[in-house]
């Protein structure tokens, strides 16, 4: 999620030039519409549309593909549960593998929905500086505290991941073996406890650093944007596409 933030914000595309407020409102509306879809056909088209938008951002296809893993994993999990529980009328059979058709559809629907939404986060997050995205959310009514939390999460998830990795490496060097037995899980609990404490201390220091630089609860950012007819046209086109899919899904 955070890997694309600010990496591609300085590039140029029609999505980068789209007014942030219009873009965020339109894409969030698309997300809601995609989540409401129930049929495989409209969902497949929604995924295609999301991909077209994501490819327009100049983010490499490989980085976008990485986002599909979660959807595939969840879809497979639903499929596996359905196969093991064996409910529903069997329609699809390959040798000994029989998959009930309703759970198969459920798994595909879930995978397509998650895929489309994850791909849509690419134009949502990668086409403007993260500060601008946060300011957009604030203008849409997100409380200042949440905005600050999102900013810090985007920065410190990487620091925390590094810390977890190095702590685990150090513990393994000193003989830690990770297994399911309670005796072996106990030191792991202690390690994570100390990491939580370290993170709390760091949070305090970051708060001090922010206050020393004038932070009083609201992050100020530049907002050199003006809504132009082209922005409205872009929003209308994207929302129209999503509305057509929704209508198709409802009356099919």
């Amino acid at each position, binding site marked *: 999620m955070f890997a694309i933030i600010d990496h591609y914000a300085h590039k140029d595309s029609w999505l980068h030039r789209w007014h942030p407020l219009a873009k965020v409102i339109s894409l969030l509306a698309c997300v809601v519409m995609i989540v409401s879809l129930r049929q495989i056909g409209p969902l497949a088209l929604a995924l295609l549309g999301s991909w077209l938008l994501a490819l327009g951002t100049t983010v490499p296809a490989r980085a976008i593909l990485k986002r599909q893993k979660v959807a595939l994993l969840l879809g497979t999990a639903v499929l596996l549960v359905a196969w093991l529980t064996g409910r529903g009328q069997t329609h699809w059979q390959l040798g000994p593998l029989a998959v009930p058709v309703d759970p198969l559809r459920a798994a595909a629907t879930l995978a397509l929905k998650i895929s489309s939404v994850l791909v849509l986060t690419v134009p949502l997050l990668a086409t403007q500086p993260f500060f601008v995205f946060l300011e957009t959310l604030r203008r849409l009514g997100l409380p200042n505290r949440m905005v600050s939390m999102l900013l810090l999460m*985007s*920065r410190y998830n990487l620091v925390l991941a590094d810390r977890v990795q190095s702590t685990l490496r150090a513990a393994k060097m000193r003989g830690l073996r990770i297994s399911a037995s309670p005796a072996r899980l106990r030191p792991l609990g202690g390690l994570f406890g100390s990491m939580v404490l370290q993170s709390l201390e760091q949070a305090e220091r970051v708060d*001090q650093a*922010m206050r020393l630089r*004038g932070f009083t609860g609201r992050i100020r950012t530049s907002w050199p944007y003006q809504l132009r007819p082209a922005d409205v046209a872009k929003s209308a086109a994207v929302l129209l596409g999503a509305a057509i899919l929704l209508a198709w899904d409802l009356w099919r």
Partner: protein
Amino acid sequence: MAVNFDIECTNAGYQPHHGHWVLRGIHLTAAPRERIAVLGPNGAGKTSLLHMLVGIKPIHEGQIRVGGVDVSQDSHIASIRQSVGLIFQEPDDQLFCATVYEDVAFGPRQMGLSETVVDARVRSTLDAVGMADQACSVSHHLSSGQKRRASLATVLVMQPKILLLDEPTNDLDPRGRRMLERILLDCPQTLLIATHDLEFVLRVCQRAILLDQGRLITDGPASQILSDARLMDEHGLEVPGSLRERHWPVSSGE
């Protein structure tokens, strides 16, 4: 004639949770543009002193005035923080935005400056610390030296009158340290540098204070304090190598 000091500590003390005194009876003055090293073993109270000067830690005894303003009064804190910049020991605490540019721009934007002024300040500051080509870099991916310079830029961009630096040479290779030395020697600010890097002190600071167990032990010219082997030894420090060589030249062998 009265001297206007940038920093005036009078009998200042800090006692967290009513326990033992971390700092007590600190008398210190710093004239404009002075470069002062704060020396002492671990736990001497160096970081606490810097934090008291910007109001992060409370003053439980005595008085601290920064730029003539009393630090202990809450109503003065905002103005003091505009005139004093603190660089934390750990750059990751200071770089909380995703990119270097956003981090450096954070302070000026919070001050309510126009975007044109913010941009001009950010670019000139990044240029001054040799980070102009890293403006769009993600902070997390910078090297230790670059993080150190970026965190210096986040403070310099606010154009403070006084700079407080906590262990600024930690994690720096010799080249990074030389670059930091050059930047600090060019700084027009009053500098207070808490450090264990005594060679760095010799090159950058004219004056040093020595703290131990929360007490101010001595205050004087840096080279004089650092060359006092007995004093240094008594307080868990060592005479820097360059001064030792000057007094006892290393034998060439044969």
